[in-house]
């Protein structure tokens, strides 16, 4: 896009290409993004639930096994108690056997769990102790039955061994229980940390999602806000895509583009209708101005006819030359107005402001004569050119000039001056000042509002300044006004000088 800011209505191609670009992106709506965010939450919660489930199941198994280990220890301890009784009083040997058998059964039923807690070597040694103990008890039972002669001596020998294995068995059982208890405690400690970890991850996730969504929503929002401000200044450059994905904001952008096209179109109509009004004002003056050459033609033609036979050839030729000259003068007057009135596309070109201002003053020549105002032109020849539409800028200056002529009294003066814009570098400033009655301070803020007018009904549309400001803003410029009842009014039009690099290229 070369000079998008200078064209009131963006070219159809430009708009449709911007719209196509906006719509052609893959869609990734705000709804999808929200859904994705909540899916992340759900997945986190599901993961935590699963982890809790697994841990609880493991804990359950552990607790069951702990129970088994405790019971095993209990059985062993019971067996040892009865064993002591047997050695003291000779009773309960049967009970010892029973409890040992119970212990063996318990060990057999949860061998896999035991294996997890104890090392293979320990398990084997534990088993060996149990086997040996059982065998010793069995031998004692045999001894009771057969009652051998050296029973007391043999019993004493077995007793030592039984006590040794018994104590070993107890210590192994205690160790098993202890280790399992430790393991359960560890699992519990881990389980206690889980909610904390969940909370931390949740916090991070929330922070990320909030940040992400905020960026996704606030970014386009602030961009659209900037666009709205840009539109307010009269820049109707269509919005182009800034991101990879299309979402609800893209639809809004498309709607804004459509709105801008409509507004630009309306603005053009407004500019045109106001121009026609200016043409109406000028036409009255032009009609008077035309009277002079027509009168000259009339007088010359009549006299030529009247004195045709008496005139010399040279005199006749002079009169014919006058006729041709005056006809040409009429043509020029009419063409100037028609040039201005012509409805046309806005065309941007490099403009010589001095020439443009002179032509504009020429257009209003008759209004100037009618008012009897003096026009002072102070335009340096070395003004930088301005890039813009000749017709609409001419309309702006004509409008300011006609306003100034309305304001001045008979014999007042209107000064048109231009400069390189010392206060605003990069701009060409054109001042139209009058020494009229000034604008009352209480209406000054409203003079650029559409349909605001201080002129009597039917004399002004109240669109002149509004349309002028619209045109100037489209050119990337501004209009400023200063007014006081003593010194009159000065309108300053600032337009970007064409030599500034990058002028007319607006980042989209």
């Amino acid at each position: 896009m070369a000079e998008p800011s200078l064209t009131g209505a963006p070219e159809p191609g430009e708009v449709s290409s911007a719209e196509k670009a906006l719509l052609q992106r893959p869609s990734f709506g705000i709804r999808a993004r929200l859904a994705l965010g909540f899916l992340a939450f759900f997945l986190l919660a599901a993961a935590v639930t699963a982890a809790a489930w697994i841990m609880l199941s493991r804990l359950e198994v552990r607790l069951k096994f702990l129970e088994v280990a405790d019971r095993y220890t209990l059985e062993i301890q019971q067996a040892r108690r009865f064993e002591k009784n047997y050695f003291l009083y000779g009773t309960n040997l049967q009970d010892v056997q029973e409890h040992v058998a119970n212990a063996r059964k318990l060990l057999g039923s949860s061998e896999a769990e035991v294996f997890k807690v104890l090392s293979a070597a320990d398990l084997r040694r534990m088993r060996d102790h149990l086997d040996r103990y059982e065998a010793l008890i069995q031998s004692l039972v045999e001894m009771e039955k057969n009652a051998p002669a050296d029973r007391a001596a043999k019993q004493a020998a077995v007793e030592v061994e039984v006590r040794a294995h018994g104590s070993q068995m107890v210590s192994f059982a205690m160790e098993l229980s202890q280790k399992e208890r430790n393991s359960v405690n560890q699992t519990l400690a881990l389980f206690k940390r889980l909610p904390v970890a969940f909370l931390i991850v949740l916090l991070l996730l929330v922070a990320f999602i909030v940040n992400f969504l905020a960026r996704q929503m606030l970014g386009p929002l602030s961009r659209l806000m900037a666009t709205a401000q840009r539109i307010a200044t009269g820049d109707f450059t269509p919005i182009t895509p800034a991101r990879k994905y299309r979402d609800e904001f893209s639809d809004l952008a498309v709607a804004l583009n459509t709105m801008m096209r409509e507004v630009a179109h309306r603005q053009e109509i407004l500019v045109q209708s106001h121009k026609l009004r200016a043409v109406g004002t000028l036409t009255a003056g032009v009609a008077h101005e035309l009277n002079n050459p027509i009168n000259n033609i009339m007088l010359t033609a009549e006299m030529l006819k009247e004195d045709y036979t008496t005139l010399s050839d040279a005199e006749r030729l002079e009169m014919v030359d006058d006729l041709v000259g005056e006809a040409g003068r009429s043509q020029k007057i009419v063409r100037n107005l028609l040039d201005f009135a012509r409805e046309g596309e806005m065309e941007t070109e490099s403009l010589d402001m001095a020439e443009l201002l002179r032509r504009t003053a020429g257009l209003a020549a008759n209004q100037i004569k009618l008012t009897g105002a003096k026009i002072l032109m102070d335009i340096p020849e070395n003004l930088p050119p301005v890039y813009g539409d000749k017709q609409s800028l001419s309309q702006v200056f004509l409008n300011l000039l006609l306003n100034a002529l309305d304001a001045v009294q008979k014999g007042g003066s209107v000064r048109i001056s231009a400069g390189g814009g010392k206060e605003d570098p990069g701009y060409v400033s054109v001042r139209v000042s009058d020494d009229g009655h000034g604008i009352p301070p209480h209406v000054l803020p409203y003079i650029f509002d559409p349909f605001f007018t201080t002129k009597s009904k039917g004399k002004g549309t109240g669109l002149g300044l509004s349309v002028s400001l619209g045109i100037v803003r489209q050119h990337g410029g501004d209009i400023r006004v200063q007014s006081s009842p003593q010194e009159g009014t000065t309108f300053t039009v600032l337009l970007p000088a064409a030599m500034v690099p990058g002028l007319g290229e607006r980042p989209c």
Partner: protein
Amino acid sequence: MDERLSVLVLDDEPIVGRRLQPALAKIGCDVEIFEAPGPALERLKEKAFHIVVTDIRMDDMDGIEVLERVMERNPETRVIMITGYATVEMAREAEAKGAFDFIAKPFKPQELRDVIAKAADSLGFHGVAHAAVPDVP
């Protein structure tokens, strides 16, 4: 009456003067042509013209002012105003200030001659203007 009718024509369009000079001379007027109000007013100080024909709208001074000066100096002079645009106010103002008649641009030489003849009549130059007119083919 032996005196010839003296006419001063003031219009800032040179062609007007160039064409009216012979046109009015034909009906027996002494015509003096001016394109600017300044020299014309100077001349009016020197000589009391019977008739002054002036354009109303000129760059330096408007015809109303010329009318005022002429009336001050010589109320007998018949002033004929040439108007490009005849507004009611201006006509009323000119009439109040003593203008004899108006003629609107564009006009034919004969129309001005008729107005001048009327003015001549009112000054007592009976027949002077009319006598010259039959020349017209």
